[in-house]
């Protein structure tokens, strides 16, 4: 279908964009539009004014240093995916973006837009939580920073206030020896995951030293798997896998049922992904 009528503006500064967003009810930010425009075409979302931030100078900036990567609000997923320097600092960004949509979607879709959209089955919000990302936000009350762990409050729901705009996100580099695994079960390539896992794992010579595990597609928001993280530490390839599976199932008790899978299936799927990730990290260490 076609979107219902709305007014459109293309401001040239963040301040102008925030003014419109704060003044007009149901004003929405248009960055890549790869989730917003389908929702508007389906008339699933009510938009009075679309604030296209594509003309705001500098918002497409991407910066990379050994401690982390900063991605501006209008930097596309393709821009980030194709950048070898970014992949060297935050390997999870490339690993996650490979699962996001298709080439045509990534050419327009933005990293920050995916975070703002907060689809519970999306990879980037889970990666943001796993990498201690911090979002830079501008609003009518000034600028503030929000930790990814405090940002996602439910399906398509975040702690952004009315009139606020994400201007950039900063992903912190994982420990140098860590391996990042982004793995998921999805029905078709490029589709949203039925269930998925981001794992940042530090393997020792024989056993796991540290683990950060965040599931997605399970509930309303990225799910930190804290019991499983505790079980991972000290786990070795010859240990039973049941302990991991049991911990993951306990962590994901509120995984939901829908037409694609039951909550039970989702818990079992993420448990299997967790075992697979642990083995991969330990094997990679052995091969090194």
């Amino acid at each position, binding site marked *: 279908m076609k979107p219902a009528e*709305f007014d*459109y503006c293309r401001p040239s500064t963040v301040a102008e964009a925030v003014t419109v967003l704060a003044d007009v009810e149901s004003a929405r930010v248009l960055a890549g539009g790869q989730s917003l425009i*389908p929702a508007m075409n389906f008339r699933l979302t009510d938009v009075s*004014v679309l604030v296209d931030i*594509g003309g705001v100078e500098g918002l497409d900036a991407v910066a990379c240093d050994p401690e982390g990567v900063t991605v501006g609000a209008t930097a596309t997923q393709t821009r980030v995916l194709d950048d070898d320097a970014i992949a060297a600092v935050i390997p999870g960004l490339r690993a996650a973006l490979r699962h996001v949509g298709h*080439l045509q*979607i990534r050419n327009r879709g933005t990293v920050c837009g995916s975070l703002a959209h907060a689809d519970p089955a999306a990879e980037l919000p889970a990666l943001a939580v796993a990498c201690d990302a911090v979002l830079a936000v501008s609003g009518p009350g000034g600028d503030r920073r929000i930790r990814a762990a405090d940002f996602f409050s439910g399906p398509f729901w975040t702690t952004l206030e009315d009139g606020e705009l994400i201007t950039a996100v900063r992903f912190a580099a994982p420990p140098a020896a860590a391996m990042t695994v982004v793995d998921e079960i999805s029905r078709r390539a490029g589709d949203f995951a039925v269930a998925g896992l981001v794992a940042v794992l530090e393997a020792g010579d024989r056993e796991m030293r540290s683990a950060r595990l965040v599931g997605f597609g399970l509930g309303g928001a990225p799910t930190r798997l804290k019991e499983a993280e505790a079980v991972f530490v000290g786990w070795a390839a010859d240990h039973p896998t049941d302990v991991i599976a049991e911990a993951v199932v306990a962590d994901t008790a509120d995984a939901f049922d829908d037409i694609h899978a039951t909550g039970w299936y989702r818990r079992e799927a993420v448990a299997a992904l967790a075992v697979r990730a642990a083995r991969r990290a330990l094997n990679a260490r052995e091969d090194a």
Partner: protein
Amino acid sequence: MTTSEPTSETDVEVTVNGRRHRHRAPSRLLLSDYIRDTVGLTGTHVGCEHGYCGACTVLVDGDAVRSCLMLAAQVSGAEIRTVEDLAPAGSDSLSPMQQAFHDNYALQCGFCTAGFLMTLESVDPSRYETPEQVVELLSGNLCRCTGYHNIVAAVTEAWNLSRRRGGSDYG
């Protein structure tokens, strides 16, 4: 061009296949409808209108995009290319990829074909070595007639990819 005043109509100034166009368009007008109805180039097809099928793929400043997921207002100042731009102007011949599609029976009803061709046009063939990589590249375009095998065969031929890699039955 930027303006912070919200309006229900927007000036669109754009180059499509080398020709400049200037219109005052409703802000809600999708790029796909702008190309088909306002500019009058109907080679770009509209399938699902929610970014799933890839039939409406066009190039915006060289990048393959879904034209049903962009507004005409967003492309002001951009250069658009559509399927009409692929074959050499003023001749009856096809582009090499179009010819390969023809030779390999890579289309039946043809509804999806423009989207496939524009996706292929947007990339550097030297980045693709195997039919499997082509399958991955084309995963954003749906075809309901061919079962994809003949499309992959056409690309394999046009790009002269190795047909012996990985025991694939593609090509």
